[in-house]
């Protein structure tokens, strides 16, 4: 078999795939170690390569995917895609604008790959786990969590002349320290390189969040809140899907449909999607082979843009163009998505300074099981978890029981009073299906009127 690198495989597939096709080859190599009660529990190594052939006929697309890489399998996969696209085309013409043309200039170089991380050394995992166990033991706690690294190479070629090749790495570790009574604290780190994960610092931060004072009560109501970056990042990820998806926006379903150019957040809020910015998890192009571009989403509190893939840009019309945010070859039916969100920092030195103006309020380390209640309102519900504290007289004082919130992300951003200067790349480290590392670079923030609607026992 000639050459088995993703670009080689892509070219072999293209050679047998016929007209009007895009071939996308994704190779994942990853290592993930889980631990619980200060002992390793599961360790998973994955190496897999998928080949997706997208055929376009009369404005319709159909795709077929395989992880068999021999020529016969590639030929059969191409036949499947072509036959499906032809069958669909018989139903009439479609709306797809066709495959992307090669970009006039190659995608910008980025710092999203680290060779040492791509070596996937299991000893590195073992060392990180031992460190977490030792730190937890120092505090009389148990450690739980995950350490993971991955290397993903993506090659895209097409009959329109696309020839894209990008390799990225990512590393993620989270530590939950837990006492015998079930109180827990959380810290997580995300980086391009495993060397960027500070395992001991993470474990110490998680241990510091457990707290040993009696639990305070904070009843339902609207409270001033300080949200750590992990909480802010998750809210922004939801906002990304609800407000900045160009397809939803064009269909009138987006939270910012008919609101671009209007004030939607506090003047201190500037949000962008920028895959090439320092501190993010960079990528060169999207899954249509379109170079990723930076998009200002909210600038000084004013809604300024949404992201597009080629399909959503065609639906939007009016000169809209892909911004390089396709999440699937040909564009996902769910629309494009901002996967490198960046929220500008503010003036506060740290979270303690954010809390200093709050007489009575809530300090939230992270959120959990967040889900959308009403899309256009960006109304979400979810729980706090692993480190929720009361703020009293300007100081973070006692732990509280986890609370349920039901609130609008845009309302919280409109009620944002201050943000920290420092920002952190945050991620949930969730990898369903093929590994696609993404994160949000954001500060902690203080906002008014965080709507608490319940609490755990």
């Amino acid at each position, binding site marked *: 078999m000639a050459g088995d690198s993703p670009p080689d495989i892509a070219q072999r597939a293209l050679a047998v795939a016929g007209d009007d096709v895009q071939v996308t080859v994704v190779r994942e190599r990853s290592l993930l170690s889980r631990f619980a*009660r200060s002992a390793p529990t599961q360790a998973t190594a994955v190496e*897999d390569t998928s080949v997706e052939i997208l055929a376009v006929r009369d404005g319709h697309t159909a795709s077929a*995917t395989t992880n068999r890489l021999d020529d016969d399998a590639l030929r059969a996969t191409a036949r499947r895609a072509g036959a499906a696209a032809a069958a669909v085309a018989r*139903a009439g013409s479609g709306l797809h604008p066709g495959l992307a043309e090669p970009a006039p200039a190659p995608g910008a170089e980025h710092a999203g790959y680290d060779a040492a991380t791509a070596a996937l050394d299991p000893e590195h995992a073992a060392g990180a786990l031992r460190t977490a166990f030792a730190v937890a033991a120092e505090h009389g706690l148990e450690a739980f969590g995950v350490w993971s690294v991955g290397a993903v190479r993506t090659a895209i070629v097409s009959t329109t002349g696309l020839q894209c090749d990008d390799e990225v790495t990512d590393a993620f570790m989270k530590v939950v320290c*837990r006492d015998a009574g079930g109180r827990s604290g959380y810290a997580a780190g995300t980086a391009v390189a495993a060397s960027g994960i500070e395992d001991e610092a993470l474990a110490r931060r998680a241990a510091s969040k457990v707290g040993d004072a009696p639990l305070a009560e904070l009843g339902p109501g609207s409270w001033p809140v300080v949200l750590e970056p992990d909480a802010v990042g998750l809210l922004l990820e939801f906002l990304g899907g609800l407000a900045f998806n160009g397809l939803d926006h064009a269909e009138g379903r987006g939270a910012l449909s008919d609101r671009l150019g209007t004030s939607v957040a506090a003047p201190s809020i500037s949000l962008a999607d920028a895959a090439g910015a320092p501190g993010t998890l960079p990528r060169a192009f999207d899954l249509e082979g379109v170079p990723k571009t930076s998009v200002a989403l909210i600038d000084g509190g004013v809604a300024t843009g949404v992201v597009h893939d080629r399909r959503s840009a065609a639906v939007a019309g009016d000169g809209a163009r892909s911004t390089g945010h396709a999440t699937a070859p040909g564009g996902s039916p769910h629309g494009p998505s901002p996967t490198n969100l960046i929220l500008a920092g503010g003036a506060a030195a740290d979270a303690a300074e954010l809390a200093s103006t709050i007489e009575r309020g809530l300090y939230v380390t992270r959120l959990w*099981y967040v889900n959308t209640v009403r899309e256009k309102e960006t109304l979400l519900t979810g729980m706090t978890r692993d480190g929720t504290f009361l703020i009293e007289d300007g100081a973070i004082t006692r732990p509280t029981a986890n609370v349920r919130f039901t609130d609008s992300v845009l309302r919280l951003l409109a009620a944002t009073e201050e943000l920290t200067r420092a920002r952190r790349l945050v991620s949930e480290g969730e990898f369903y299906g093929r590994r696609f590392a993404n994160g949000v670079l954001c500060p902690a923030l203080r906002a008014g009127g965080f709507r608490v609607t319940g609490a755990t026992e």
Partner: protein
Amino acid sequence: MLELLTALIARVPRRCTYAEARHVATDDEDVLVRNGHVEQVDSASYAGIGVRVRAGGGWGFAATRELTLPAAERALAQALAIAESQPAAPAGALAAVAPAVGHWACAYEIDPFDVALEDKLELLFAAEAGLRGDPRIVRADAECSSRRVRTAFASTAGAACTQIRVECGAAISAIAVDGDELQVRSHPGAHGGSAACAGWEHVLAFDLVAHAPRVAAEAIELLTAPPCPSGRATVVLGGEQLALQIHESIGHALELDRMLLGEASYAGTSWVSPADLGTLRYGSEQLSITADATLPGGLGSFGWDDEGVAAARTPLVAGGILRAALSDRQSAAAIGLGGSGGCARADGFARQPIVRMTNVSIEPGEAGTLDELIADTGEGLYLETNRSWSIDDRRLHFQFATEVAREIRGGELGRLLRNPSYAGVTPQFWRGMDAVCSAPAWRLWGVGNCGKGEPGQLMRVSHGTAPARFRDVQVGVA
């Protein structure tokens, strides 16, 4: 492929105290018609071998897409290497298992992969057309999905078995927008509908075309419907919403790995502890819950789980009292159970088995039909079709929203209400259940997106439900 796996298992070195190898070949097809056009026709075929080993106290798992013995041996060596690289851990026992030998296949009438794409499109176009007409319907979707999974499994515990399952499902949904108001209505269920371990006959039975005008009309009606009131009310949950209620507040809570803190950093723990088995009152006397991997049509049905444990039917809650948990071989042994509950399941070849639901169902009651239950209720709310769900990491405090509510007045269904929601605390909520509809109203609902594990695994499970009534529920919370 089974021969390859058994040959591999024969080569497992002596320092490995347990090993299993699983070949999984999955074929998927997803078709979506939206707003008068074909939006998606995707097919995917993945195959590979996953090898899990235990050496010392550590587990290691490695997967390869190459279907050869040398590649499988490399995966075995890699799994061993990462198991042995782990910090030392106590090597707890595994519950005993009888060797899984033989073949199992789910029953179906029409193989969905034998149905021509043109025929699928014809059905979806017809259904989708029935959703359109009012300009406030901004998105009209009709979709179907098909899956075929072939597995082979061998282990050092003597397993050598193969299985084939075929699944399919379908749904229609309409999204209506008017200004800032957005409403959605779906059939037969939300989030892609309800799949089953069955053939194309399952899709045809949904009668998507006939339901489309009602779905669209209700989406439009919801735009101007009065909002669901806030307060405490008697609530009747429709079968699909009850399925998710069971899934989130009973199924996950009874996963033994969660009770033992094995998932504390991700999926979470449980408000239930192993010491509660046999004594805890989980709900009212009307609450009986069964995990049944032998249920025909269930997405959680199989011949053997992914550790080679034979499918079983296990009462989890009987008359409101907690009787058993969902377990795999490791968690079962950890609390001294005689055998695994047969709930180890893995998502594809590149993921290792973890504790999962099979088909966790409420047993039918004696309240008759839905109409009879509504008549008996007098005043309250009927909530149907999930729209939003959230529950805490102990599976205790939950909040759900449904697409639609209807007033119950004078024992009859009345006005449509928009944005219904309700919240509660698991044991109080289930203790407030005082009626479940009878067996004819009981049916299976598929849940295709149950996330758990790291790296993430999406599992498919089913829940059998009949509409049920709950007293003193907090409603209108969002």
